[in-house]
Structure formats: C-alpha cells, structure tokens
C-alpha cells in the first residue's frame, strides 16, 4: 500500500503513496487536516508516487511518530471515501440546492400556483371557531377552579 520512513532524529515521518490508489487531491486534503499539529511537505516522487513528510511541531517519540503515520492512513481513507461519496451524489446535491434556491424566489403572477376555490374563499378576518374572542367575553366573570 505505502512505504513509511520514520526519522526519529528529524522528528518526522515520510510516506510514499501511490497516486493510482490515493489520488493527489485526496492526499492533499488529508495533509491539510494535519497542518495544525505537523509541518507538512509534499512532493512528487516520480512514477505516479507522492512523498509526504510530516514533521511534529513538538518533539515526538518513535511510538508517537508511528501513530502519526497510522492517523494519516486513516485520514487518507476518510478523504477517499468523502471524495467517492461526493462524486456519486453530485447530481442529487445540485438538484436539492437548485430546488431550494428556486423555492426561495418570490412568486410572480406567472410562477404563482393556481389557488383552489376552497383556498380562494378563505378570509383571514373570519373566525368560525371563536378563537379571537377574549376570555372575559366568552366566560363572563366566572372564576377558574
């Protein structure tokens, strides 16, 4: 899958990735997630390979450097999955956003849906259930139990 070089003296690790398995944008996205705790460098290593150096901002033990390599692998997988899901759902995401934007636009005479007769007959000033009648008017001076 990949080659990992642990350089304890330099407080860094080097990972050699195959770009056929992990496309460049995936490696870049994963590297971006590490810039808060590492100094990151990337360079092409020839024959479709990418070399990534992660140098700890603090001094890291050999064990911590190994763990860092593992964390990077996990992040690579996550970014790969994100990319695949994003590619598969492009159409539906565009449709949802398009629909949301369309429905947020104010209605014009042309776009306004036809009112049914029932809706057209409704009047907001009518109060058939007596909801707008004040308590005192409805129940007089009766006290609550």
């Amino acid at each position, binding site marked *: 899958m990949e080659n990992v070089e642990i350089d304890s003296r330099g407080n860094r690790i080097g990972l050699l990735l195959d770009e056929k398995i992990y496309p460049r*944008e995936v490696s870049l*996205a994963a590297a*971006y997630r590490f*810039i808060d705790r590492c100094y*990151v*460098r*990337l*360079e092409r290593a020839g024959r479709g390979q990418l070399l990534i150096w992660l140098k700890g901002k603090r001094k890291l033990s050999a064990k911590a450097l190994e763990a860092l390599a593992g964390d990077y692998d996990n992040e690579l997988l996550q970014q790969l999955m994100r990319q695949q899901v994003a590619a598969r759902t492009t159409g539906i995401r565009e449709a949802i956003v398009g629909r949301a934007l369309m429905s947020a636009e104010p209605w014009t005479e042309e776009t306004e849906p036809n009112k049914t007769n029932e809706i057209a007959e409704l009047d907001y000033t009518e109060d058939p259930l007596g909801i707008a009648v004040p308590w005192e008017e409805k129940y007089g001076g009766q006290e609550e139990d």
Partner: protein
Amino acid sequence: MAAKKKTKKARPPERSLRLDAVIYPKDALMKTAEAFAGIAQVAFQRKGRYWQVRLRVLKPKLADRVADEFANHALAAAVCRSIS
C-alpha cells in the same frame, strides 16, 4: 575625540525551502508571501520542477519555525485553490 564605531546591523537569518511547483502553484506562494510580509522577506524563483523560496526572517529566533509555517501556509493555499 574617539571615532565612533560603526555598528553593523546583523542581517536577518535566511532560510530556503524547495517546494514542488506542481503541488504548490505560483498563486498559492504569492498569497503566502503576502501573508508573511510582516514576518519575513520572501523571494522565490523557479528552478526546474521546484520553487526555490528564500526567507529572511525578521525575528532570528523564529527562523526555522517561520520556514516550516510558510510551507504549511502554502499547502493550505494550494488546497483552497484546488477546491475553489
């Protein structure tokens, strides 16, 4: 009267970075250089498949750290550029 000794101002320490030109595009470097304007004097030139970046860090104590942070910032700018 004793001649005044001219005190030479020490030049800020210089650090150089070599960044892959395909991964770190020019405008990402330009943005980063702009962001680091108050921290270091930045010069870069293309050398084959790399950018040779020279930094004169204004605070000598921070020279190494500034160079590493410069590379991180350039990477972030490159990623932002690729997704915009």
